[in-house]
């Protein structure tokens, strides 16, 4: 693993120069070029390489207009407590920080740069050309590959040594491997057809094909500048990745990572305007050979058939500012969150049309979604940022497609976790104060919050182990560990140290279409 790691970072360092500076041509003076470069190297993975924002606010002459340069300089030096904004004191010189602030206050948001299928092809890297020489089974002790839990460790600065995908055996809570990802790891997906392959996407839209048996990267490709969208087809043959910058999505061969077809994301939004759009979630479904992508700004969901020239069926008017989604009913129905309408839209993927729009609290962010079977009903749980007076988690009856209850919780929420064998649905509270250190547990039967857990750092992305016995939670920002709890007693049983852990992804997800349902329910029940 050591060699793989240094090999990878060397190759990355070489490759990086090529795409770090996409705007070189626009920079006029040497100074502008220098600060542009500092920005791309240190800030762009969070603030957007077009200065338009990503995980962090947009930084440009409009958004920073009239702001005191001194105050901005302080934020850059000390960072912003309890957020991802790291302190650059000691990493950048005082002069550079002053220069950067000046540069940011005078730079407009840049045009969406191009990243074509040819750019993608040129970025494809092969680290292991002969995959037949890879070991036939895991090089570490593990009962079942579904026991693997992958954690996207961001690293304090969102890039560098701390940025990696960390893989843990969820029965022993021991690390079994880690993959350096250059920029913060963001999404981890697993191949449903072959347990050895994982796909990791980082904050600069690079995708790494990882061999989980030998814990090394075999190939990588850069599909854009940022954007979290990534999905795998049910047969494990295709990937689809979507970007915020530029506004496109691409189908890749999951085996070779070669790009097969790109899609310009634009369409008529629910208000009748033709808009170019960020890519929201991308998802595969066990129900058919399709990959589905949400067009955030156009409010459309596109279903791409994985055949011929990848024809697209467009479902319009899904909502305003779509984001993420989850599947139900054997993968035939898709629940898509719409930020600006505060609804979740149920889509029938067979008919390729909207079934119904359901209330979803305010600014719904459903994470990977969660659904459980209780007393003969299939209940879905909807988290939401809750940027309004009442903070609730929505519970829907997914058979009848109606709201059952809005469960009051302590603050905004970002991601739910459930498991058929665990008594509680866990939701992470994200409100920007000490509540952010907590996860609340909703009893599946009473649909009430029964317990609040302090995880010792900014708590997010709860995830159950494949057997449902343990609840993993990222104690991110300054907790710097993944905390593991017994799912019934809620006692803390282990901690796995890493820098700024974020998303947690159980390999068990390949078995159930949505977390909380059993594999059987996911296969056939409730067609």
């Amino acid at each position: 693993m050591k060699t793989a790691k240094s090999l990878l970072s060397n190759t990355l360092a070489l490759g990086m120069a090529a795409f770090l500076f996409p705007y070189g041509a626009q920079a006029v003076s040497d100074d502008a070029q220098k600060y542009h470069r500092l920005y791309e190297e240190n800030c762009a993975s969070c603030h957007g390489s077009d200065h338009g924002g990503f995980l962090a606010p947009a930084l440009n002459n409009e958004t920073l207009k009239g702001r005191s340069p001194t105050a901005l300089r302080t934020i850059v030096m000390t960072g912003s407590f309890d957020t991802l904004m790291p302190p650059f004191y000691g990493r950048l010189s005082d002069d550079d920080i002053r220069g950067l602030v000046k540069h940011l206050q005078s730079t407009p948001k840049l045009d969406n740069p191009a990243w074509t299928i040819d750019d993608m092809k040129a970025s494809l890297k092969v680290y292991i050309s002969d995959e037949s020489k890879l070991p036939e089974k895991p090089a570490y002790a593990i009962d079942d590959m579904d026991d693997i839990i992958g954690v996207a460790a961001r690293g304090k600065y969102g890039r560098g040594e701390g940025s990696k995908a960390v893989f843990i055996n969820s029965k022993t809570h021991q690390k079994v491997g880690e993959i350096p990802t250059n920029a913060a790891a963001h999404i981890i997906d697993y191949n449903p057809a072959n347990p050895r392959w994982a796909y990791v996407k980082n904050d600069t839209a690079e995708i790494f094909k990882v061999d989980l048996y030998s814990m090394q990267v075999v190939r990588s490709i850069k599909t854009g500048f940022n954007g979290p969208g990534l999905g795998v087809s049910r047969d494990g043959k295709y990937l689809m990745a979507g970007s915020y910058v530029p506004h496109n999505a691409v189908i890749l061969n999951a085996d070779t990572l070669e790009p097969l077809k790109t899609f310009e994301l634009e369409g008529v939004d629910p208000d009748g305007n033709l808009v170019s759009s960020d890519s929201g979630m991308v998802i595969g479904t066990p129900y058919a050979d399709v990959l589905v992508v949400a067009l955030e700004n156009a409010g459309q969901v596109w279903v791409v058939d994985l055949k011929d020239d990848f024809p697209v069926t467009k479902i319009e008017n899904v909502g305003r500012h779509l984001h993420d989604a989850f599947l139900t009913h054997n993968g035939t129905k898709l629940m898509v969150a719409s930020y600006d309408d505060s609804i979740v839209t149920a889509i029938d993927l067979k008919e390729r049309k909207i079934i119904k729009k359901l209330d979803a609290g305010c600014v719904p962010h459903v994470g990977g979604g969660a659904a459980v079977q209780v007393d003969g009903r299939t209940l879905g749980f909807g988290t939401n940022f809750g940027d309004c007076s009442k903070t609730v988690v929505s519970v829907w009856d997914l058979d009848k497609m109606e709201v059952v209850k809005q469960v009051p919780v302590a603050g905004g929420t970002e991601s739910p976790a459930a498991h058929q064998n665990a008594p509680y649905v866990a939701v992470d509270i994200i409100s920007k104060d000490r509540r952010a250190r907590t996860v609340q547990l909703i009893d599946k039967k009473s649909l009430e919050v029964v317990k609040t857990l302090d995880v010792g750092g900014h708590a997010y992305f709860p995830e159950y182990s494949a057997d449902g016995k343990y609840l993993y939670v990222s104690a991110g920002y300054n907790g710097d560990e993944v905390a593991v709890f017994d799912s019934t007693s809620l006692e803390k049983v282990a901690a796995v140290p890493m820098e700024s852990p974020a998303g947690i992804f159980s390999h068990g997800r390949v078995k159930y279409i949505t977390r909380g349902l059993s594999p059987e329910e996911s296969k056939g029940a409730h067609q």
Partner: protein
Amino acid sequence: MKVLFISGALMAGILAATSADAASIYAGQTQAAQVCSHCHGVRTPSADAPFPPLAGRDVEYLQKALKEYRDKTRKSDIMNAIAGSLSDDDIADVAAYYAQQAINP
């Protein structure tokens, strides 16, 4: 380095806001640690950050260092501003907190 007073004030704000709630799960010594950890981390030192790790360090040393920053006998723009707002009790608490943390790799 006038600007750094802002972070000092912010720190004081954070410390004051949380100390009212003594019975909460946020025990006294972790309050400051939440602020300090933004730069120093808790148990896991950042691979890339230029800040000295504090976990598992000698408690006397930590207290002495913080008092020197507070008195400005030890100069550091950033630590002078931060330690300036700490009371003797805060220093004792946070030093004890960090000293007892096991170091992670």
